[in-house]
């Protein structure tokens, strides 16, 4: 069974549930990385809230039948955040929670970068940056070719790219394509955590005003705190609302939601540091991070 799309902003109770999901995803993601001792902590932590709100509210999915052709699709173009995606998939019931402990071990179903052939619930193999975003455009196009679902709803493709990833020329090839083909069923996010491997994005490759760029490419562009679930929810609802600039066939602009995020969010020792990209992360680091996480959790 595929869940329906939400029609109104999340209630306080729903937001509390999403916050709890996000904490759980963050915790199990960190545990899986700590089990190995190294991993893409920074870029995984920055997308936790987005994954929580997608998997537990906005994506239309069928975890019991991961390949249900009527499902929405999700492409993690910044494939190195695989560990966060796996934690979300485990939280949602696609994979057993114990499997998270196999992250990046030989023979695992959970490789560093997302792989559609290895992991139930993963729609596209990604990792070579920029490529997943083109694929997301192709998926959105293919879903549109299938027409609306039996209930009249739009089949959507969702994607997350990174701000460092946006250095790739292919991202902008795809940006032009999605706008030209009026893929309003494509809802994308830029995880603007402001760091890439070699340092701050502004120091390594300053892309200037991302919002202006996406708008100029013909996208509906939004900007929101990527860790504020209530704001994120309202922004996603706006992005999914009918585009006032849509044509007679209902084809409008694709949506780009730029997420202001903190790289390594929730891990005080790594927050806002380029070194968090692919960092050593052992049991002691985990203990400190979980302690901080517990302090944030609501009492009682």
């Amino acid at each position, binding site marked *: 069974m595929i869940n329906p799309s939400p029609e109104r902003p999340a209630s306080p109770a729903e937001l509390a549930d999403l916050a709890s999901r996000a904490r759980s995803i963050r915790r199990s993601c960190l545990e899986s990385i700590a089990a190995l001792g190294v991993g893409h902590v920074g870029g995984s932590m920055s997308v936790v809230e987005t994954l929580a709100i997608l998997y537990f509210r906005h994506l239309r999915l069928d975890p019991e039948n991961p390949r249900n052709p009527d499902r929405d699709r999700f492409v993690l173009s910044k494939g190195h955040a695989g560990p966060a995606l796996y934690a979300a998939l485990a939280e949602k019931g696609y994979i057993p929670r114990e499997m998270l402990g196999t992250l990046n071990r030989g023979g695992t179903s959970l490789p560093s970068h997302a792989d559609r052939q290895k992991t139930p619930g993963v729609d596209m*193999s990604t990792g070579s940056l920029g*490529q997943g975003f*083109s694929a997301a455009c*192709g*998926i959105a196009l293919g879903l549109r*070719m299938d027409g609306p679902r039996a209930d009249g709803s739009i089949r959507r493709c969702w994607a997350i790219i990174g701000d460092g990833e946006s250095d790739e020329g292919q991202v902008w*090839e795809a940006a032009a*394509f999605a706008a030209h083909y009026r893929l309003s069923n494509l809802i994308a996010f830029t995880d603007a955590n402001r760091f890439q491997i070699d340092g701050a994005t502004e120091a390594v490759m300053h892309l200037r005003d991302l919002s202006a760029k996406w708008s100029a490419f013909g996208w509906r562009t939004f900007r929101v705190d990527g860790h504020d679930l209530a704001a994120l929810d309202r922004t996603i609802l706006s992005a999914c609302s009918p585009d006032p600039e849509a044509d007679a066939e209902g084809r409008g602009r694709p949506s780009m939601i730029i997420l202001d995020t903190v790289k390594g969010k929730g891990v005080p020792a790594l927050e806002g540091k380029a070194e968090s990209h692919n960092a050593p992360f052992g049991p002691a680091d985990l203990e400190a991070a979980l302690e901080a996480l517990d302090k944030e959790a609501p009492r009682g």
Partner: protein
Amino acid sequence: MADREMRAVYAQTLTALAASDPRICVVEADLARATGTGPFAKAYPDRFFNVGVAEANLVGVASGLSAAGKRPFAATFACFASRRAYDQFFLSANYAGLEVVLVGTDPGVTAAFNGGTHMPLEDLALMRVIPRLVIVEPADPVSLEAAVKLALDRGGCTYLRLQRKPAPEIYGPGEPFEFGKAKLLRPGKDVVLAALGALMVGEARKAAESLATEGIDAAVLDVFTLAPLDRAILLDLARKTGRMVTCENHRVTGGLGSAVAELLAEEGVPARLARIGAGADEFGEVGTQDWLAERFRLTAPHIAAAARRLVKGE
């Protein structure tokens, strides 16, 4: 009847198949005019997509279409299909286990007036190292029609190396083809001319006729698919004749000649091998196709000379 234009055959075949298979779609990168897919676009405007001059996105979008259950045929010049969009084809299409037919047009010297920048003499080498990829270069319109149907039926990824220009029909209608099965066009006991693609199969046949007048009995093999390679027939012919000339519109490194050399060495077949193709140290150049074929020693007289040397034990 005049020879059929290969690109027209490609477009007609796809358009015909699309009538009964709604998954088929065509993706172009501002070369639809060259690829000749206009008739498809006219018949199925909702299944025809032009990404503009953006080959990385061409292959990425095609991969996404496949992930959404479609069967995309993406086309561009072979130089771009291979050199420019290689990582996209490798990862987004092949590694991801999707089903993309990538068509590389104007291979080797058929790039002619577009010159060295556009002359892929290495696309086969690049494609041959991609696991499970089918690499097919049809020798005539009939085998091209078959290749398109086989690519669709087999699934997975296919690299279709395609000259645009007309090619004479070698096969009769209804000739059966299989990926991994070469076609013996002419038996021969002295030497084997193993050729890939319309240009080279044509030159190899001419070479065999010329050799016959000298009393040299040359077999001609249309290799059809470089991958999977028809190991059985190549080994059998190599054992029987002890001499093999590979003929490819490509550099001699990494393509058909290399594949056959690996095969003969691995199997311990005591056969002499000569490789016809552009030299390992040569880049492409500009000129007419005929001038370039001569420049890179791809023509029948060069093939015949190589065969003659092997037969004479030189």
